């Protein structure tokens, strides 16, 4: 196993419903996400994709079972060490204060700094390098609230990349973006994987998974239905079982597309 693998072993996680009754979401979830891949965690809304990311990061703690990051149980990492290992881009991050792009991306340096430390020249250089890498350096002094949706999402990714993580988790990174920006974000993810970062993102949109992922996890109602190389998993029978509606998989110019199929 490569040092940046994510593994979950027999993870049990209960959540409280609106009547405060414990309900099992994961009941013995076992999964391994290989290092250096772009992994798509694919499933309908409510299948537990976000919870899975939060369990990996320790934002939520499993009721039973183990989460292993680079072979070590997650609890053995300090918060800071974990921050240096794993970056997170969450869905629709709300920013009440109007930071500049550079100020915001610099926050990604937090796990590399002590509690009372402020970022120095080296941190600014890293933040600028990340912005240049994903083609946003010209926005460095712009206010975050003045950005378009696509730019904003890329800036969120830049903040996570300024952490210099070996594992990058993203929750629905393309869900509110137009086609061009979806492609930009997905290309950035592929580029990170080429540089050795293990990238895992959730999506409910099978075409996103087919476009960029090399490894796909199919989830439904807290269960992993299938996990494996994209070519094996993005298939009509598996996706039909996952989404509960008939789908067809067609290939256009070497790329797979998932389209709703007709009954019969």
């Amino acid at each position, binding site marked *: 196993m490569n040092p940046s693998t994510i593994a979950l072993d027999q993870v049990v996680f209960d959540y409280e419903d609106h009547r*405060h009754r414990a309900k099992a979401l994961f009941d013995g979830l076992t999964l391994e996400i290989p290092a250096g891949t772009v992994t798509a965690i694919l499933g309908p809304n409510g299948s537990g994709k976000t919870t899975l990311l*939060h369990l990996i*990061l*320790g*934002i939520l703690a499993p009721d039973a079972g183990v989460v292993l990051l680079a072979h070590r149980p997650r609890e053995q990492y*300090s*918060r*800071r*060490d*974990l*921050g*240096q290992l*794993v*970056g*997170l881009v*969450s869905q629709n*991050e*709300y*920013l*009440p*204060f*109007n*930071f*500049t792009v550079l*100020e915001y991306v610099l*926050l*990604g340096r*937090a*796990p590399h*700094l002590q*509690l*009372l*430390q*402020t*970022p120095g020249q080296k941190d600014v250089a890293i933040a600028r390098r990340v912005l240049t890498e994903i083609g946003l350096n010209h*926005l460095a*002094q*712009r*206010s975050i*609230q*003045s*950005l*378009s949706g696509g730019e904003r999402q890329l800036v969120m990714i830049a903040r*996570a990349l300024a*952490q210099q993580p070996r594992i990058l988790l993203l929750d629905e990174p393309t869900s509110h973006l137009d086609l061009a920006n979806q492609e930009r974000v997905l290309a950035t993810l592929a580029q990170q994987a080429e540089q050795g970062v293990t990238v895992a993102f959730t999506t409910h949109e099978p075409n996103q998974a087919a476009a960029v992922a090399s490894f796909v996890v199919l989830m439904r109602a807290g269960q992993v239905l299938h996990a494996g190389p994209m070519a094996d998993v993005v298939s009509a029978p598996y996706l039909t079982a996952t989404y509960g509606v008939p789908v067809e998989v067609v290939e256009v110019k070497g790329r797979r597309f998932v389209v709703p199929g007709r009954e019969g």
Partner: protein
Amino acid sequence: MTGGRSLAPRRPIFPLLTALLLATLVASVFLGRYPRPYWTPPRLLWEDPLARQLILNLRLPRVIVACLLGMVLSVAGSVLQMLFRNPLVEPGFLGVSQGAAFGAALAIIVLGARSLALQGVAAFFALGGLLLSYALARHIRYGGWTLRLILAGIAVSALFSAGVGLLKYVADPLTQLPELVFWLLGALWSVTWTDALAFLPIALVALTVALLMRWRLNVLSLDDAIAISLGSAPARERALLLILVVAATAAGVAIAGIVGWVGLIVPQFARRLFGADARHALPGALLLGGIFGLVCDNIARVTFAGEVPLGIVTSLLGAVLFALSMVLPTRTDAAA
């Protein structure tokens, strides 16, 4: 998209503001109504023993407290706004101000006149208000942590407000009520060196820790999930800052009474001047707050022969500035 002007921090303002604060501080010592309205010539420090007494024993501690109070309320406001991820939060939230008011009212009715006991009781109930809000928020069964704390703060404040109303109702209208009302309006007229020295340590500790953690505040203003992913322990770090700024605010309120608006308006202006990054906005709020505290108290004590309660001046100036800040075109510092 339009509106993407550069938000680079305007750092040259810092030396200017520092100089302005020092000038205001020195000028405040010589502003007053002795021997004649508005100005006490500095030479009287040597020539007139009464002027010396007045300046060294009455004016100096008061000026120090006015400056520190402005700083504490402004920094507390900035810190609370970032911790609660809401640019409209101020130290009056979380039951702190109303708790202090109730404590002070209780002390005036039960223990009699102003005294150290009043400050102790006010501080006790200010912290009590916070703890009660905190405990209540833990038991609210819906909403995020921030929403629950704010809701709990509203409930606890209302509870203490009712208590203050009751105490006003039973207060002796000739002896106790005027003092109670004056305290509730906020004033520094009775500040002594004892008050100043009691306030100084907690104010300095809170201001220093907040300034040292100013960049961390940016991290704490992010979503919990993101803050955790950045290696922070948001619950613990927020609790530390919260306890410190509330303790300093309680100590200030115990001396000065309810001085509103400072903690809301000064942080807003600091963000407009220095940008959202607390690395610059927090020191900015500290300097602006000191100046605002001094200017308001000078207006309160110098303008008329009789003292105008400080809380009235800060509310008046604060409300006007707040209204102006919403009407005048500036770069936005808060999401709608």
